[in-house]
């Protein structure tokens, strides 16, 4: 399939656009909702829609890793954090700090600059979707053949983060006073 115009979008692009609308809208709800537990649950919707975007982009292994780690682990970790900091369950008025207007201005400026640059730079870029490019076999071969050293370094990093989290959160390990 050759490169066509930006409009009308193909069926895959329509699916990606719909998933993108879901992801962006739920992300907007994450940063604007007044109930902190709802923010975590909207984060699940956003991450799930992003996993759908990965699936449309033929990155299926990344999509399942996204579901497993983000939707499964990260959101549960965030909910544990919400629970352990005794956040109120109902709507709370003080979730936003005072610089909301300035934050909106900065975010809109960032969005304007990024969208303008991206649209200007990649208007003609067309990626043909080949099914199976992001399957577990191809990705595993890539990681364990070419990216073994970063993979091993990542395991050391995970161990360090694990030990660090335990040391920080335990109370019976004192400092060197």
């Amino acid at each position, binding site marked *: 399939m050759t490169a066509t115009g930006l409009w009308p979008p193909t069926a895959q692009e329509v699916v990606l656009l719909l998933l*993108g609308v879901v992801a962006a809208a739920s992300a907007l709800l994450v940063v604007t909702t007044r109930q902190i537990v709802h923010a975590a649950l909207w984060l699940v919707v956003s991450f799930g829609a992003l996993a759908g975007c990965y699936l449309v982009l033929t990155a299926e292994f990344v999509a399942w890793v996204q579901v497993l780690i983000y939707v499964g682990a990260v959101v549960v970790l965030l909910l544990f954090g919400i629970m352990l900091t005794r956040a109120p369950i109902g709507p709370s008025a003080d979730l936003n700090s005072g610089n909301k207007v300035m934050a*909106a201005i900065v975010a809109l400026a960032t969005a304007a600059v990024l969208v303008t640059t991206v649209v200007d730079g990649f208007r003609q870029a067309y990626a043909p979707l080949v099914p199976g490019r992001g399957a577990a076999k191809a990705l595993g071969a890539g990681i364990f053949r070419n990216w073994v050293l970063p993979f091993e370094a990542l395991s050391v990093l995970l161990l360090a983060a694990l030990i660090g989290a335990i040391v*920080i959160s335990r109370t019976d390990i004192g400092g060197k006073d």
Partner: protein
Amino acid sequence: MHVVYPAVLAALLFSIGVYGVLARRNTILVLMSVELMLNAVNLNLVAFDVWLGDALHGGQGLTLFVIVIAAAELGVGLAIVLAVFRNRRTVAVDRLHALAEPGDDPDGSGDPDGPGGSDDPDGTQDSGGPGARPARPRGGAV
């Protein structure tokens, strides 16, 4: 698939994350916004990996690495948040502007776990020790 669609979506998600980091007060909500920004980067990586047709799968491999690093970052970040909550009884980022711990005076005269203990109304005690920090000029301490 035009690269513009996922790239613009990633830019929008990143901007939403920027807004959340700047506007939210609760530290856990700030961490959620950071995760949104990392996801925007991941979407960019996947889209450009598909576009370039990288034989080494660099983009999607880096996406997996970013996901793992984000999980590690969130683990350490939540541990720090819980430690701060244990000491200060709050996780509001705009109330955590004291560099010293509440009970960190050299002569031990401060109360260690008072509510809202980050605001030490008398900034005169912390001078004279070897690890003394100069009192910040602070207008209108509540």
